[in-house]
């Protein structure tokens, strides 16, 4: 399996910084803003986004963690990850502008599950979606508001996002089928 690096550490950092600026711009500041990262790598990205937003606005915004395993539309599929992990949202979602964060946007089914899950925690004023990679092939009418990089892929290929916090290095790889 051949792997091609399409983003390196610097490119990832620049994307995250740009998205932080875009989030602030689109929401006209950070009032009522909160971030929720989808496990696993969305959580690290949300943390980095909130660090960057703090650098720009000099203020903390609430940051939560969502595990969507229990909201998958296919029980057997829910085994992509061996362990159901905790959801940790220790602030009130009601009337907040919520930015959902994930690493890769693909079929849209993860986001659909995340929207269902958020529904059980409250009623945000709005939900926006930020992803590092949009690789296309949507199976549901879902789009991202903030994208680090659009990467056209074939469904045979795999996109691997590696982040220092989880994988020891920052890079995005595309693995093609020979």
């Amino acid at each position, binding site marked *: 399996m051949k792997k091609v690096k399409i983003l390196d550490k610097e490119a990832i950092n620049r994307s995250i910084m740009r998205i932080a600026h875009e989030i602030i711009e689109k929401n006209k500041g950070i009032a009522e803003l909160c971030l929720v990262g989808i496990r696993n790598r969305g959580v690290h990205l949300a943390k980095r986004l909130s660090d960057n937003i703090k650098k720009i606005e000099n203020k903390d915004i609430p940051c939560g963690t969502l*595990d969507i*395993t*229990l*909201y*998958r539309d296919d*029980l*057997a599929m*829910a*085994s992509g990850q*061996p*362990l*159901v*992990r*905790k*959801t*940790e949202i220790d602030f009130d979602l009601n009337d907040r502008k919520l930015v959902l964060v994930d690493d890769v946007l693909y079929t849209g089914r993860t986001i659909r599950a995340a929207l*269902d*899950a958020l529904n*059980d*925690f409250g009623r945000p004023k709005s939900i926006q979606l930020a992803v590092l990679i949009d690789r296309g092939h949507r199976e549901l009418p879902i789009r991202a508001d903030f994208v680090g990089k659009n990467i056209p892929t074939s469904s045979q290929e795999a996109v691997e996002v590696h982040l220092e916090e989880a994988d020891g290095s920052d890079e995005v790889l595309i693995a093609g089928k020979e």
Partner: protein
Amino acid sequence: MMFWSKKDLLGLEYLTQEEILLILDTAESFKEVSSREIKKVPALRGKTAVNLFYEPSTRTRISFEVAAKRLSADVINIATDTSSVRKGETLIDTGKNIQALKADIVIVRHSCSGAANMLARALDISVVNAGDGWHEHPTQALLDIFTLREKLGKIAGLKVTIVGDIAHSRVARSNIWGLTKLGASVTVCAPELLLPAEIEKMKVKATSDIDKALKDADAVNVLRMQFERDENAAFPEQLDYYKKFGITEERLDRAQKGIIVMHPGPINRGIEMSSGVADGENSVILEQVTNGIAVRMAVLFLVAQAREKIKNGDID
């Protein structure tokens, strides 16, 4: 990383250390669901769980029912004393009928040891053992161990004492399997007549001296004395039992400070323990009840998921 691959939960004897830890870790995540305003996730939406109880039970049955409902499964309770079981239908036939109704999980309690194992072999759907004879009561032990781990941060190296009718207790047996597999050392304490000779084969220490059993223990799990089942009148005097084995404030004073007191319920106050101990700061009895929901949610979720994978041919 390991994946859960069993369609049934029959006993802790049949599980590896990793499998037990997987259930406990999964239960930790499920605990959060019960603290939400909307205490429900759609994980088992469209699945049907059947409570098939051949012995009276309130807390275990309700705990399973709450767990299944918080996972969005539909729950049917079969009271065997008003069903065709009374007309002589066998356990396997009843099970096959439940399977023909397209239920997905049978939660069974039966007075015969091995009933759940037998049912699991006969059915393709998931079977969860909610207590079979003197054999096992795996979810009770899992919730005991979960509570202990939550309180003390670990299981390995702990000293746990189990007091009560060891000979006839499936709770004791499941706890012994689970605790020893996770590296705890277990002491069992009971009147000699209720202390089976072969118990030490399970790698536990056995004694009839309660003070000796409590000394150095990090936790004591106090079993219910089932006087209603004591056909041989092995312990005729309830008050006598309290004097010799009852957990009292005085006995706890001589034990380690902070010793955890557990009880699977229902408590016989003044027989197994004093009211002061049951309601005291060492007692985690009501936390056990809360944790039981999370543990049973984890078990139902894992067995249902494994069955789905078996059906799809992903695992054998």
